[in-house]
């Protein structure tokens, strides 16, 4: 791959402002020299080849792969806040590829493989820990779905198997696997390659890698309008922002929860509704949980970070909203569900809670690729599971922008599937299972 080649060739000297290494760390520690900034801000140019709206993992990964794989470096990434302020910094950082449909499995498997070598590609420690992922089944129908998912995964070459309560207890000793529980654990889908990662580091690593290759990252630059030429075949002409107008022929909308607002500016309607998804974190405790625990029936997923904090996530709120405030109802429900699974956590205190915005589609699958407006591309509809798809989406969208055609890996996720009636039903694995 070209990004690996760049990482190893002699031409890297001068690309990155400073190569991160153990020797460099010791040298700077001893001499107390300041680290140079990971990337420099630039003034907004009046025109760019490609403008990417949304400085999260999807937008920055697309910018990085455009520069690294396709040599397209006249790219601007715009964000109305700071990079990683939206879903990329608010998710629960779980990665997995144990989906239900073959399209979904192939796609996320590619993403996990890209994540596996991301630290080396970006020269940035993203702290990916493949600690195993358990999706619990509390009733016969979810156990049947687990078997189905395990079989689809095996056919696609992804490591997943259904295991029983005894093995679950060995993997996660604090789980209540007794038959007296209100929601007894009948089995689980065990997915060893799944795990957690440092989500901020992924955003920063992509930003640093993209900026080193010439991409401009403009934070606090909000898009206020998109100019489209009229006529039979509308085409993107320019993007209006709070920092001035930018002439461009290609715009990628990678704005997750805000994606319909941006698409409306270009005159494209998306079948997307925005729901908040809340998460919470506890005070740090000693390491005791080495796997990621997910329960679809109880709408909760649990993992322990390297700092010892327990991260809890849930499903989306019961109504659409652009608000990112937490609610007491959520915390009450979440605490009850966590204690159903792990009664021993009853004395652990919550540190904080937050919400991120999810762009939900009717079939729980993303919308990627071209739209009826020429030059206006979308990478949206990621709902509750966008972070784990960051690298592969970036790679596919970069390919789509460079070639002008929908790459094979995302051919099932086009906007036209809603008219054609070829929806990709991923609710069985994407509705809650993180």
């Amino acid at each position, binding site marked *: 791959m070209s990004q690996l080649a760049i990482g190893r060739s002699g031409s890297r000297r001068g690309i990155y402002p400073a190569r991160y290494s153990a020797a460099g760390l010791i040298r700077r520690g001893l001499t107390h020299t300041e680290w140079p900034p990971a990337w420099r801000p630039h003034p907004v140019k009046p025109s760019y080849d490609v403008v990417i709206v949304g400085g999260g993992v999807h937008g920055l990964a697309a910018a990085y792969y455009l520069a690294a794989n396709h040599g397209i470096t006249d790219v601007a990434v715009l964000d109305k806040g700071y990079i990683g302020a939206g879903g990329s910094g608010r998710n629960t950082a779980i990665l997995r590829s144990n989906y239900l449909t073959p399209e979904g499995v192939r796609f996320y498997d590619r993403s996990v493989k890209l994540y596996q070598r991301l630290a080396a590609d970006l020269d940035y420690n993203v702290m990916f820990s493949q600690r195993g992922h358990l999706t619990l089944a509390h009733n016969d129908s979810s156990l049947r779905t687990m078997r189905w998912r395990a079989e689809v995964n095996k056919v696609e070459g992804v490591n997943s198997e259904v295991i029983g309560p005894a093995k679950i207890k060995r993997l996660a000793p604090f789980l209540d696997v007794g038959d007296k529980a209100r929601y007894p654990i009948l089995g689980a889908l065990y997915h060893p390659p799944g795990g957690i990662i440092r989500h901020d580091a992924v955003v920063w690593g992509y930003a640093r890698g993209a900026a080193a290759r010439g991409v401009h990252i403009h934070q606090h630059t909000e898009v206020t309008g998109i100019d489209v030429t009229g006529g039979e075949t509308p085409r993107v002409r320019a993007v209006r922002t709070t920092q001035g107008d930018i002439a461009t022929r290609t715009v990628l909308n990678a704005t997750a929860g805000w994606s319909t607002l941006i698409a409306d500016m270009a005159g494209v309607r998306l*079948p997307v509704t*925005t729901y908040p998804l809340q998460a919470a974190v506890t005070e740090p405790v000693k390491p005791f949980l080495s796997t990621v625990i997910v329960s679809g029936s109880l709408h909760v997923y649990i993992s322990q970070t390297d700092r010892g904090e327990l991260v809890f996530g849930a499903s989306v709120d019961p*109504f659409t*909203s652009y*608000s990112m405030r937490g609610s007491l109802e959520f915390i009450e429900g979440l605490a009850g569900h966590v204690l159903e699974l792990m009664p021993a956590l009853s004395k652990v205190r919550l540190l904080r809670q937050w919400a991120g915005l999810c762009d939900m589609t009717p079939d729980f699958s993303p919308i990627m690729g071209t739209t009826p407006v020429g030059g206006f591309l979308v990478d949206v509809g990621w709902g509750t599971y966008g972070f784990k798809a960051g690298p592969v989406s970036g790679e596919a969208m970069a390919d789509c922008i460079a070639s002008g055609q929908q790459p094979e890996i995302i051919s099932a996720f086009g906007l036209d599937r809603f008219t054609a009636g070829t929806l990709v039903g991923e609710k069985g694995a994407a509705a809650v299972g993180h």
Partner: protein
Amino acid sequence: MILLPCPWCGPRDASEFGHVGEPVPRPDPAAASPAQWRSYLYLRANSCGWVVETWYHRQGCRRFIKVERHTETNETREHRQDREHRPEPESELQPAGDPSQQATAGTA
């Protein structure tokens, strides 16, 4: 806590309600084109700002109501038609009779 102004029950906690969402007029199934039907099924305005929505008061009067809500701040207010056509408070109280009599009947 988010309070929704139910025209029948007064302001009540949003957790008592089911969110139905933006009202979308249903096209005539016999006459609608596939594009119209697709739009009815899947496309929503998803606005950021004040919207008119339908909610179902499942733990109260069990009626479908219209409420205005700001989708960024979750402030709520009565639907404009309800606000404008609300009867005067005096005329609403008259048929209920004398409040002191009701209180006596309740304790008896």
